[in-house]
């Protein structure tokens, strides 16, 4: 039971909004000590794990390229480009990205996407610009809510697409685990059983995205009527948008 002290620290830390780096370091050290390791050995384990997991940090390598293009007006160009497609709405832009991301991940192309290389420089500006084209300047909370939806689409498309690809880490992990327990299975069988969930994920999230357009229209129309909005009206709209997007 004492080994769960780390989990407790993490939950309390996130609850009381202590700096997550501190929380995680404290949880790691407490877990190691509770598991019977000497303080020096805990430090060794922490250092070894951090160095072994350096590949997680590689996403940041793309930042110089993205920054360079932002400096040259990539977001502005994307917004102008979306303005030419009258049929584009936030929901439809995100729906298209969901489909592309999920199909690409299912083909093993998980690197076609990601928050640093696709969401921030390309997809989020498109989704915002599509809403602006139909509703005029957006209030900041709406802008933020649209961005959060864009990040969500990237995650959902990735998670429920990649497991259809036979050489992805999770499929290989399942295969290895089952083999250790005396069950031999081909990766293709595992990938096949990921398809029903992939379809369900797409249907559920696509429905939400199409409803998002309607809710955006409704809450932004209310916002326009209240112009120039008094402070409380603005707060009300904010709440509405938050509810609509929750």
């Amino acid at each position, binding site marked *: *039971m004492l080994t*769960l002290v780390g989990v407790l620290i993490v939950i309390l830390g*996130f609850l009381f909004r202590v*700096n*997550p*780096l501190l929380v*995680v*370091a404290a949880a790691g050290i407490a*877990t*190691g000590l509770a598991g019977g*390791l000497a303080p020096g050995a805990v*430090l*060794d*384990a*922490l*250092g*070894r794990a*951090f*160095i072994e*997991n*350096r*590949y*997680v*940090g*590689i996403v*940041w*390598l793309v930042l*110089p*390229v*993205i*920054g*360079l*293009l932002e400096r*040259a*007006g*990539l977001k502005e*160009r994307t917004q102008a480009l979306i303005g030419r497609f009258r049929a584009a709405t936030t929901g439809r832009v995100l729906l298209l990205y969901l489909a592309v991301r999920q199909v690409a991940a299912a083909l093993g*192309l998980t*690197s076609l996407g990601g*928050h*640093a*290389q696709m*969401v*921030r420089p390309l997809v989020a500006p498109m989704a915002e610009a599509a809403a602006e084209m139909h509703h005029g300047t957006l209030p900041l909370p709406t802008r*933020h809510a649209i961005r*959060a939806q864009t*990040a969500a689409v990237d*995650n959902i498309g990735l998670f*429920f697409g990649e497991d259809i690809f036979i050489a992805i880490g*999770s499929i290989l*992990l*399942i295969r290895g*685990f089952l083999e250790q327990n005396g069950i031999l*299975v081909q990766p293709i*069988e595992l990938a096949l*059983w990921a398809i029903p*969930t992939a379809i*369900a994920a797409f249907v*559920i999230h696509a429905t939400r995205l199409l409803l998002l357009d309607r809710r955006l229209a409704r809450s932004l129309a209310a916002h326009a009527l209240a112009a120039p909005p008094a402070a409380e009206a603005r707060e009300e709209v904010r709440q509405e948008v938050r509810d609509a997007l*929750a």
Partner: protein
Amino acid sequence: MLSLEFIYQLMGVLLGGVALVNARDAANPRRWSNTAFWGLYAASFLFGSWLPARVSGALVLAMTLVAGFRGLGQGRSPTTSPAERRASAERWGNRLYLPALLVPGLTLLGTLTLKRVSLGGVPLVDARQVTLISLGLATLAALAVGMAMLRPPPAAPLHEARRLLDTVGWAAVLPQMLASLGALFALAGVGQVVAELTTRWVPLETPLAAVAAYGIGMALLTMLMGNAFAAFPVMTAGIALPLIVGRFGGDPVVISAIGMLAGFCGTLMSPMAANFNLVPVALLELPDENAVIKAQIPTALPLLAVNIALMYFLAFR
């Protein structure tokens, strides 16, 4: 042969440059905190493969203390004004997408072809890491094309990288820290304790109850560990194999394939999955740190229910 080490050295150079830019920026009230933080992170990439584990551990602690108690600040990077950006967007048009699309395009090409390239009998790249190495090479190529095309000041990529890393702040290191925590959890056997508690206190007398406990357990343990991969062996060995497969005769292939996806529903709802849920909050400059999780919960919960139903109907055909 190019290995992952090559990419780590590139990362080290980038982060070292960011630390240097920070050290020279007197406008940042937290100038030396930023310098120390990114400098230490750079050292972990440059020298990590050779440092004793204890020194690396001390380095991680030092970074944590700097970020946690001193805090990081935002400096001022020389960048372009909104008007300059609009003019530049007008001038370059769709050509701006070329470097942006070179990154995924060349990564894909490299992943598919580099495995087979060898020079004098020695393979060019480490085949197990081909995607990450291709990503590194693609980024270098895109940077070269971008520089040749746009002709910005030579230090611009570094200043821009620094501007973006400053917006992300310490959250940039959080995914790696959480992965390390997962390793410590695994070492101490946290998952086994959770699985034991579940089987002891939750009644699992029918196939449906067992399947639901497994699906929900996968999601919950994934939320705690931040990673479905860490939760999968524990919950599957704890509940799925002995009960669902052993006692009720369910199909282990269906159960484990969909069980993993039930875990992914947990990933969508957990701040522990920082690279998916917290990093975009920082990158997109959102004021609510749970904004992405809140956007995902209404999809994650129904999908978890669907996964449990799918396991129940497909595993006991």
